[in-house]
């Protein structure tokens, strides 16, 4: 039932005896957890196990049926499906959210460019942005919120490989500076990109604490891909296992012939930007 996470660090989120109700059913009962500063925790569980419902309760968006939730300081929440008013300009929204938080404006053009989006999207209305672009924009706003805690519902699911790499790098960098992150990741997009402090698994209406995969295990979850192109180029790369699907899809779409895909162990280069077929050696 309880997840006591990093008790030595100052708590940014504490929940005690929380019962989460969805409709007329209690999906979780007696949840107790404590998130320390700088921890990266994944909420795991099957579909319908209550991950999103628990996140919403922890974010104060839904009151718990029983129990209490205490957050220290400002925080940001990004839902799984980001929807903004269609006529709302991106720059307007970012600026208004900044105003809501009572913070000074930041150079959004630079921040947007750093996230891999085009600066021009700031002038566009939300209606013309894709799901992934909106999600990246909302994540950008949350990351720059300057709070102590990020609550993210499936942040990796709508992003392309470059977006996943950007988000993984940002979260890793900011968590090492003290930001606590609690996220769900059903797609497995975070695998190998984030060093997890702990995994909280929701099962049978309870919250069980699991140890995060060790760094060695994370490194062991690698896939070696060997491919050749009809024009004579060849490619031999080792990527984190969750990123292998993206790489294979990209290769096949570009007309490559995949000769071999195998699991490998041992350290490889740290996960960087998403795989590009142009990186194959001629």
């Amino acid at each position, binding site marked *: 039932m309880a997840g006591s996470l990093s008790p030595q660090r100052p708590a940014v989120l504490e929940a005690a005896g929380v019962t989460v109700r969805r409709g007329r059913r209690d999906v979780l009962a007696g949840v107790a957890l404590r998130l320390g500063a700088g921890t990266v925790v994944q909420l795991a569980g099957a579909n319908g196990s209550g991950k999103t419902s628990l996140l919403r309760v922890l974010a104060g968006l839904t009151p718990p049926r029983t129990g209490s939730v205490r957050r220290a300081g400002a925080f940001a929440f990004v*839902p799984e499906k980001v929807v903004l008013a269609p006529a709302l300009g991106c720059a307007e929204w970012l600026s208004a959210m900044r105003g809501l938080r009572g913070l000074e404006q930041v150079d959004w053009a630079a921040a947007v460019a750093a996230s891999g989006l085009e600066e021009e999207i700031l002038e566009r209305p939300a209606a013309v942005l894709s799901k992934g672009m909106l999600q990246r924009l909302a994540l950008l706003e949350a990351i720059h919120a300057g709070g102590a805690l990020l609550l993210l519902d499936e942040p990796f699911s709508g992003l392309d490989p470059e977006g996943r790499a950007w988000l993984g790098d940002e979260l890793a960098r900011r968590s090492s500076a003290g930001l606590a992150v609690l996220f769900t990741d059903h797609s497995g997009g975070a695998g190998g990109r984030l060093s997890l402090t702990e995994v909280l698994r929701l099962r049978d209406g309870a919250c069980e604490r699991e140890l995060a995969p060790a760094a060695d295990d994370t490194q062991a979850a690698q896939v070696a891909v060997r491919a050749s192109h009809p024009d004579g180029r060849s490619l031999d790369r080792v990527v984190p296992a969750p990123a292998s699907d993206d790489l294979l899809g990209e290769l096949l779409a570009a007309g490559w012939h995949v000769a071999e895909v195998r699991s490998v162990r041992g350290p490889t280069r740290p996960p960087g930007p998403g795989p590009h077929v142009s990186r194959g050696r001629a």
Partner: protein
Amino acid sequence: MTGRLRYLRLTAARTRAPLLPLAACVFWVVGIYSYEHNEVGQTFGLTALLCCALDAWLVAAILAGEPAAQADMASAALGGDVRRARRHARRRRGAVVAQLRRARRRDTGRRRVVDATTAVAAGPATASP
């Protein structure tokens, strides 16, 4: 506070939800006052009552024009929905009550004028025993 007002204004301006109640409101007002046999004074109470309901609809449309996901992110930025919902409910209740009071005051004032006029007109007859 400025940030919150700015956000509300932006939400109201960037959603099309208030257009319908706004159009209805204008339609009622123009419709009532453009009817040539209606004196302004006679229809003022009726207009106020109608506008009260339409204004409540307008406020609700503005507040509901914000998509749920956007509202969730804004709520989190403000520290959680529970407090925000309470604030919104208070604001809505206040707006409706204020409109009702205003309408009632106008209606009562009009009745007093009518009663006084009637009393003055019937004054000599009722004054003598």
